[in-house]
């Protein structure tokens, strides 16, 4: 081996010659090679398909997250599990609008925020009634944070909130259910006992196929102040950080600000929660990587089974070609050259299997991406999975080819030439 390392040119030449020889061997024994590599084919196909499925799932979920806006930070009241407030009544935990006065001035990383208030109410237009409709009180910045376009009319304005006007935005769905005119701007509906004027139509929330239960199809949007004056409902805040990079800072600033606003003493636990989508994304990514590694690891056990097949056929090959080995040694092949020859052959077998497995894996990926409702339409084989599959195949070839190759390299040339 030392001699080989000392002469890299010879090593390269020997590698080339061995590769040509190995491919010739594989071609000469097509059927046998095919059968031998089936284990590797199945292993690589399974590994790549599983990774493809998980990668697809991950891509899909991340896309879903993005529909919520990765810059968004949710701030809601929360009763701490420890400390003096752990049994505090919700009335003392809940938010009030003035808690957030001056938040933008104190939190430079937060670009904008909206107070939100939700309650449910029955709405009516002439004889049509809809029960349990969610009424959402919003501030003008909501339009920027949610980025839902106004298809008709105008958004909720500062004037609406400042003057607690009884105006509302509805969705096209709602308009149809209430049998309003197509151009319903200017018409009025009853929300509970009060009459609200429709000022605009807001596009439906982007329907999330995975978190379907999350979206409320029946929503009416009114100015936050109006909602607050009417009902004093449960409220929370959605803020948007200046960019994804500062979402961590934005959370810290919001926390510091809120603790002061709510007069929490040092050491006292928070009475609110601040959650960023970005944080979920990060956690999910970690989870996905773990899942992919575990699943890939489990499936790659099949590759080991394939490796045993390779070892078996290599042992057969060595014993079949004992005379050839003897001759090669007689004409001056060093043991290391013979070792290399058979190792290269085992690795080449694995690579052939790996390539076929990749093709099968690609087909499987295509198949699973077309399973309806499986949420896997994004399934794809990432480059690193291809590299890993081939790397694994190479390692399997090296590990399981080592013993037969070592056996070949140790053959006594005289005995080998006398074989049979």
């Amino acid at each position, binding site marked *: 081996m030392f001699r080989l390392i000392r002469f890299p040119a010879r090593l390269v030449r020997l590698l080339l010659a061995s590769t040509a020889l190995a491919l010739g061997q594989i071609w000469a024994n097509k059927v046998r090679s095919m059968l031998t590599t089936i284990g590797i084919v199945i292993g690589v196909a399974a590994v790549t398909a599983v990774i493809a499925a998980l990668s697809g799932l991950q891509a899909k979920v991340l896309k879903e997250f993005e529909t919520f806006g990765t810059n968004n930070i949710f701030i809601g009241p929360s009763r701490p599990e420890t400390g003096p407030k752990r049994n505090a009544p919700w009335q003392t935990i809940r938010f009030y609008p003035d808690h957030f006065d001056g938040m933008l001035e104190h939190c430079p990383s937060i670009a904008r925020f909206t107070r939100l208030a939700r309650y449910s109410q029955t709405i009516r237009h002439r004889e049509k009634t809809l029960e349990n409709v969610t009424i959402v009180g919003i501030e003008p910045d909501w339009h920027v944070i949610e980025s839902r376009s106004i298809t008709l009319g105008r958004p909720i304005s500062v004037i609406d909130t400042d003057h607690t006007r009884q105006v509302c935005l509805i969705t096209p769905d709602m308009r149809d259910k209430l049998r309003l005119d197509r151009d319903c701007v200017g018409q009025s509906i009853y929300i509970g006992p009060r009459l609200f004027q429709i000022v605009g139509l807001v596009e439906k929330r982007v329907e999330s196929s995975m978190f379907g239960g999350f979206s409320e199809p029946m929503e009416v949007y009114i100015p936050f102040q109006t909602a607050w004056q009417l009902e004093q409902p449960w409220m929370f805040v959605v803020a948007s950080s200046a960019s994804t990079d500062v979402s961590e800072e934005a959370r810290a600033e919001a926390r510091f600000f809120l603790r002061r606003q709510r007069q929490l003493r040092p050491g006292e636990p928070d009475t609110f929660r601040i959650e960023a989508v970005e944080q979920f994304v990060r956690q999910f990514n970690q989870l996905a990587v773990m899942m992919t590694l575990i699943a890939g690891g489990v499936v790659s056990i099949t590759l080991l089974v394939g490796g045993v097949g390779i070892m078996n056929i290599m042992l057969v090959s060595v014993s079949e070609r004992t005379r050839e080995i003897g*001759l090669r040694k*007689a*004409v*001056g092949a*060093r043991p290391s050259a013979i070792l290399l020859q058979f190792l290269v052959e085992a690795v080449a077998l694995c690579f052939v299997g790996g390539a076929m497995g990749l093709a099968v894996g690609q087909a499987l990926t295509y198949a699973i991406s077309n399973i309806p409702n499986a949420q896997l339409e994004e399934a794809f084989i990432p480059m690193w999975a291809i590299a890993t599959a081939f790397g694994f195949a190479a390692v399997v070839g090296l590990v399981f080819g080592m013993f037969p190759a070592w056996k070949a390299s140790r053959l006594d040339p005289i005995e080998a*030439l006398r074989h049979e």
Partner: protein
Amino acid sequence: MGIELTDITKFYRVGVEEIRALDGVSLTIGDNEYVAIMGASGSGKSTMMNIMGCLDQPTTGVYLLDGNAVQRLGAAALAQVRNERIGFVFQSFELLPRLTALKNVELPLLYSDMGFLKRRRLARESLERVGLADRMTHRPNQLSGGQKQRVAIARALVNRPTILLADEPTGNLDSKTTTDILALFDDLYAQGQTIVLVTHEEEVASHAKRIIRMRDGKIVEDFANHREPSPRVRAQELPCSA
């Protein structure tokens, strides 16, 4: 230079019994000699051949090949010695069936430090030397027995070895091709090649200039052969005319 064997022994242990395949052999073969080693089976001639060819190592004794002691070299070093200084010709040719004649001849050069073009050129020249310039791309199964042995000889000569070791080179050939191969050996000898031939056929040995007879692991006879080889044709005719 050439081969210098001094007091070579080779013992095998089979069970409790010790077999003395070679029992104190000393022998010097100079440059451009044509030696035939003869003896019955079990006489030690094959063992001697293996040791001379660096396929095997003696139990005791000193073997100088071109002035270098080779009796204690490791497997890799021995392989290099075989590669650079020894050419083997075997009774059953030992050609690799899937390789063309040219590739078969090139084989030893694969294990040397030679570039592709030089390997090709040497292999070509070697095949031309044995008269097979027109058979380079043929595979062994497309060649006759005599042609196969010529390819094997070309392979043995390709690295310009110090000695050409031929183990019963005509054992698998009919008498016509035997004559051809022996004529080829005569030619090579005339060109300055050292040849050591192991055979049990007097007829074959008669081509050599020196004949060594072995028995029970010892050299019993070692003499110069001045006799011209008897024409093979006459030898064949003898049984018919008698």
